[in-house]
């Protein structure tokens, strides 16, 4: 769990060990929070209009990923991996091997997967603390 909650770590000491990786992880968490909120809210609207359930569900995945990134928890990666795998299954179910149609469905989520994977060292270090 996040270091900030451990009383054994002095506040000053904790801040000093946050390197660039930590702040990039936080930046990614902020971006995913923004996208997650938009996609979740839009997804709920789409369901209300009679459309696909995918977006609301993937919005939940993004929000959860974001929260666990804020907490520098390895669960962030696991949750996003599941979200991405679910996206993959959904995308092929919807449009198969039509690569132009896959562009909006898979490109950005795959980039996000790579970015979340890139935070693993930060998350691991945090968990080992």
């Amino acid at each position, binding site marked *: 769990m996040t270091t900030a909650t451990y009383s054994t770590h002095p506040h000053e000491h904790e801040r000093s060990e946050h390197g660039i990786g930590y702040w990039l992880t936080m930046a990614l968490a902020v971006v995913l929070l923004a*996208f997650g909120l938009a*996609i979740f809210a839009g997804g709920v609207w789409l369901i209300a*209009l009679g459309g696909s359930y995918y*977006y609301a569900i993937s919005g939940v995945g993004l929000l959860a990923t974001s929260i666990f990134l804020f907490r520098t928890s390895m669960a962030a990666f696991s949750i996003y991996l599941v979200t991405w795998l679910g996206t993959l299954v959904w995308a092929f179910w919807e449009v198969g091997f039509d690569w*132009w*149609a896959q562009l*909006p469905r898979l490109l950005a989520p795959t980039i996000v997967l790579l970015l979340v994977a890139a935070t693993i060292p930060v998350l691991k270090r945090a968990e080992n603390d």
Partner: protein
Amino acid sequence: MASRHLATLTLALGLGCVSAVPAVLAQQTSSDPVQDEPTTAQSQLPPVPADEDGERPAVSPGAAGESGAAETADIGTDRSQPQATQAVGADWPYYGGGPKAQRYSPLDQINTGNVGNLERAFVYRTGDMPSERAKGKYAWEGTPLKVGHSLYMCSAENILISVDAATGKENWRYDPKVSDDAIPYSASCRGVAYYVNPQAGDAAACKTRIIEGTLDARLIAVDAKTGEPCEDFGDNGAVSLWDGIGNKVPGWYAVTAPPAIVRGVIVTGAQVKDGEAEDAPSGVIRGYDAVTGKLAWAWDLANPELTGEPADGETYTRGTPNMWTAPVGDEKLGLVYLPLGNSSVDYYGGNRSDAENEWATSLVALDVTTGKPAWHFQTVHYDLWDYDLGSQPTLVDFPTDKGKVPAVILPSKQGDLYILDRRTGESLFPVKSVDAPSGGVEPENLSPTQPTSAYHTLRKKRLTEKDMWGATPLDQLWCRIQFRRANYDGFFTPPSADKPWIQYPGYNGGSDWGSVSVDPKNGILIANYNDVPNYNRLIARKKADEMGLKPINERAKEDNGSIPAKAEGAGDPQAGAPYAIDVNAGWRSSLTGMPCTEPPYGGITAIDLASGETLWDEPLGEALRNGPFGIASRLPLTIGTPNNGGPLTTAGGLVFVAAATDDLIRAIDVKTGKVVWQDQLPAGGQATPMTYEVDGRQYLAISAGGHHFMETPVGDYLVVYALPQNAS
């Protein structure tokens, strides 16, 4: 090398059996073209044997009718007899190639084996580029003619130009001084017409003449040899088309297409700028003597008794459906085929007259000897979608079980291709009547059914939510929400004001002004097409007033007619109707500017002419210049872009087509649909290419003029290709 010019000299003179309007033609005039049962011409009309070169003797399918072939005495040219036509081959004497407008050339020096060696022979620049005021309004769209050693063309603002067809050296130019005020939707001049005065001596001035209609609504005739105005034509070479139209509002009434000249009669309509007002210039079709420029006849569809000029202070019926695109004529039958558009106000029909509802969005066969309709065929009933017939029709000797039938191919924006017996207007294939969606703001007026063609349609299957697109899941989601929020009940969903509605295909087609090409040798029809929806909404009058939407005649008073360029329909006032209209052409995402629907947005297909079956169908255009937020992706991947400009097919087994938004011209193998050559143009290639031969060398020409609506770079280039001289 030896000339491969396959002359197909089409001499129709001396075939005295042509009667002007056979009785069989007249009976169709008022009948409803939508029929549930198959109508086949072969069961009703005798097949006519074609002669060797695909041309045919004149036909006389019925006894001579009572309609007058004889009332031609009042003008100089005898309209009772066909005149000689020019053959396509070494020359490209008509906008559509030959007299049949097949956009086909029998030249085969450039072929599938050597097309990869094509190189630029020359690049000619017209010098006609937009002024500061005209920026964002240019879309040249020109296709030159070639006769003898000369190319003949008009620039975007109607400068007539002749250049040497082998070198690009300018022979002459004639500038009719068209003002930027005159630009309607676009500064376009798609082409000119070439006419040989059969009565003049060979040395006489204007024996051969180049004729164009201008943006400021004049017919201009100049000597093909010198570019000097023809003194015998109108007022020193010009005829005003504003006569009888009413108050002169520059940009509201403009000619952008070449006229047809049939039996010595110049037949022209004009573009009446869409969506301005119900009280708009008339869509009257007029015929002028090609020698004298005198009005031969007028056809005002809502006032058929008026065949000359209206009385002083009166006008031809205002707001009626117009013909903004190119017609085609049949010299032997003495008919001209007019692809009519919709009434001036496209998206509301409650105030239209019965005559408008009868004739709008119809192909009309008009007898050029009298100016009276022989038959007509309506492709959309009660058109509320701007489904103007935009494609020049193509004449063809259509292969049937019982021989060849003189037919006309009618492409449409909704995608259906109709094959009609051009003598009678009877469809050679079943015309199906489909139930149309109901609803919208005028449900009581809607046509309950609409026609579709059993021959072929370029239209794709109806949209679903999963066809929505974007760069990321977020903008894709936004488009899915837009999809669910709109009224959409498939093809022909009626206009609505409570919610937006989706129109698919959009007003760009299907097939637009580029039309189709026919390879008569292999029996293949080539069609490039758009596959793009529009996202539209009616705007109640009160709100439109608040938005400041005013028709062009009121705008003109305020700011001298300099109107910001915009896509057609994006906030058109439709004055007189209870609703204005807002069109999101191509349904672009408000988040990214990218289309809300997935690619392809355009394609090109080959169709077996006899059966209508698809031979191949490929996306047309690369993603090079497209991307989110207007940023060019530079992806050299075929995505299928919107396209404007027709195909050219040659006996070399090639289809040449530019049209797409990637600024490429390409050659496609007609048998396989594969691109076998391409070249980058210096500007957008929104034009139909043409080909010709000089001294045994075949040339390929395309104008790169760009197009504001297609968002391609504007230019004034005529780019001409040929094979290296030592390699042929």
